[in-house]
């Protein structure tokens, strides 16, 4: 007894405790719901069997049904487009801003801080505001584009199936850019200045310095940001609820919004779970990238 006690206060037992506590927490709060979700996708679930664990198993029927629905493929494609375009936009603009503020003009850190306001705003508020900006008849965006002569007639961002997904992507890029910028700024400030001084002495121009120093030194940060971006983008729900509700005719519907719609609007919990399982696979891939790219950071 005493040996166990002393091992807990000082020794191996303490180490094990340190590992077991968070692992247990993770298992209960994330692991179990995840497993439950996967199990549910193989069951027949309706609202009255929602409270019990014993439900008829139907094998892969939910998956087969799901992929036989005409809207499934377009929605999966929309999701892929939404993720790629959002991440590309957020990253490109975020990196640009990070480099801009890195030049450290007076007030740079202030301005950088202000950019974070967009990240702090609740998604539903952002959705409601972009809903107005993107409005076809009275929207600010259309007004600006019209006044600058880019377009002749109004674009119905939310209601035209050719634009509806892009409407949400634009809002999402705005929302995520500042987060990308801050993380990239942190990465930039971690690059030792003497590298640049040495390169400059060797006669490397700005572009060469960027390609041969900045980018390679930022590799792990960039990997982490893209992985996090993938996760945040796959989580993005509020903007869809606020701007298009997935319409018109599912042209801006994505898996995360669809899963909610199936579960909580149509009460088809099994199908909602099935979509979530498909999403989990993609998030797992992102997690692997994230863990790999941050691995040597942890080792210090």
């Amino acid at each position, binding site marked *: 007894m005493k040996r166990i006690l002393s091992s807990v206060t000082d020794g191996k037992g303490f180490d094990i405790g340190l590992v077991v506590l968070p692992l247990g927490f993770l298992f209960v709060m994330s692991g179990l719901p995840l497993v439950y979700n996967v199990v549910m996708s193989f069951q027949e679930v309706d*609202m*009255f*069997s*929602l*409270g*019990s664990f014993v439900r008829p198993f139907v094998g892969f029927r939910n998956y087969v049904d799901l992929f036989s629905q*005409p*809207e499934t493929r377009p929605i999966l494609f929309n999701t892929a487009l939404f993720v790629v375009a959002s991440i590309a936009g957020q990253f490109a603009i975020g990196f640009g801003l990070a480099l801009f503020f890195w030049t450290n003009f007076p007030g740079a850190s202030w301005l950088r801080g202000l950019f974070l306001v967009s990240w702090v705003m609740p998604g539903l508020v952002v959705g409601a505001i972009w809903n107005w900006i993107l*409005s*076809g*008849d*009275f929207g600010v965006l259309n007004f600006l584009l019209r006044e600058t002569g880019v377009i002749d007639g109004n674009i*119905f961002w*939310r*209601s*035209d*199936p050719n634009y*509806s997904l892009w409407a949400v992507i634009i809002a999402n890029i705005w929302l995520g850019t500042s987060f990308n910028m801050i993380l990239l700024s942190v990465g930039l400030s971690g690059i030792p200045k003497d590298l640049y001084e040495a390169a400059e002495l060797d006669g490397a121009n700005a572009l060469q310095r960027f390609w041969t120093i900045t980018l390679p030194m930022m590799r792990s940060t960039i990997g982490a940001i893209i992985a996090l971006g993938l996760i945040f983008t796959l989580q993005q729900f509020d903007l869809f609820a606020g*701007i*298009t*509700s*997935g*319409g*018109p*005719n*599912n*042209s801006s519907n994505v898996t995360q919004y669809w899963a909610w*719609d199936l579960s*909580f*609007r*149509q*009460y*088809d919990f099994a199908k909602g779970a099935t979509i979530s399982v498909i999403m989990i696979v993609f998030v797992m891939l992102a997690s692997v990238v994230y863990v790999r790219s941050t691995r040597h950071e942890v080792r210090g």
Partner: protein
Amino acid sequence: MDIRRYAILGTVALGTSLAAFAASAEDVTINVWSLDRDIQPAPNLIKDFNKLNTGIKVEYRQIQFDDVVSEAMRAYSTGQAPDIIAVDNPEHALFSSRGAFLDLTDMIAKSSVVKAENYFPGPLASVTWEGKYYGIPKATNTIALYYNKDMFKAKGLDPNKPPQTWDELVETARKLTDPAANVYGLTFSAKANEEGTFQFLPWAQMAGGSYDAINSDGAIRALDVWKKIIDEKLASPDTLTRSQWDSTGTFNSGNAAMAISGPWELDRMLKEAKFDWGVALLPVPEPGAERSSAMGDFNWAIFANTEHPAEAFKVLEYFVSQDDRMFKDFGQLPARSDISIPETGEPLKDAALKVFVEQLKYAKPRGPHPAWPKISKAIQDAIQAALTGQMSSKEALDQAAEKIKAVLG
């Protein structure tokens, strides 16, 4: 087992029976859930009821609109359901078909307060499942055509002759549409949620269609008219993503000359609309055609696993006995044809309410069907596919009929 253990068991048993005795001497507690806020009927009626000291104590819990069904399901399946709940009428059948709600048919037959014949047919149909009553309509609403009389005059139209038929509606909308002044002829909602179905279904029903015959010729014709209105830009393309509330907002600000919406707009319209307006019955396919309209609002129901069905019904009887206060105190329309709506002193509002009460006679429930949300989703997708030009009205409604057939089984 030693003597001490017996003693403990005895004490525990005595304690429980005492507690049970104490409880039976106390009031019966009835739990009520609804989404009504403090200025709306449920909490106020409950306060008044508790003052009567009938030996029944009512406890109230407010739930959010989006949570009503999922909260109720979770509570029911874990045995923690309230005694009474208010549910949105298209979702009533979901519960009654599965026996989750108590069959009130016999209680209503014996009741001197609740009389089935007092109710409008639409709301009553929404609480009915297989010929039995599983609830009592709480309030009701419907949609009709608002129109801007000043704009009618400005375009040389008779402000006392609103359009009666679909053709007249399209024709009037054409005359009223004025892109230079940012005015659309009509505004309504074809949003990808229940609101889209709510607005479209009456049109299909007027032409002889229904949710289980959504690709009938009449329904296709109805969708073609909608498509014409959108294609000719007689209504904003944003009709596809705007709620009824936002759409009618453009009517109030003078950016649309006519609007299809419900009585919930009246108070805001009185405040915001700086022009003379009126309300007309929904236009019909041709003169003399069957009328129809949408039907909204909530129903009361008693959960089947309540321990006090008789007391719960008494509470509902009290709510029903106060139906004549529904409009005066809370601005909601009672679902009853035997209660006349008192004058409000606002001439515009009073005239509008007369039309809405008339329209209520033709209001039809959505369903009732336990899988209504899936049926509704199929209809929404069809409306949007046709209006965006991705499919013809017929193709879109054929696809919807296919999906609905799979749901109906």
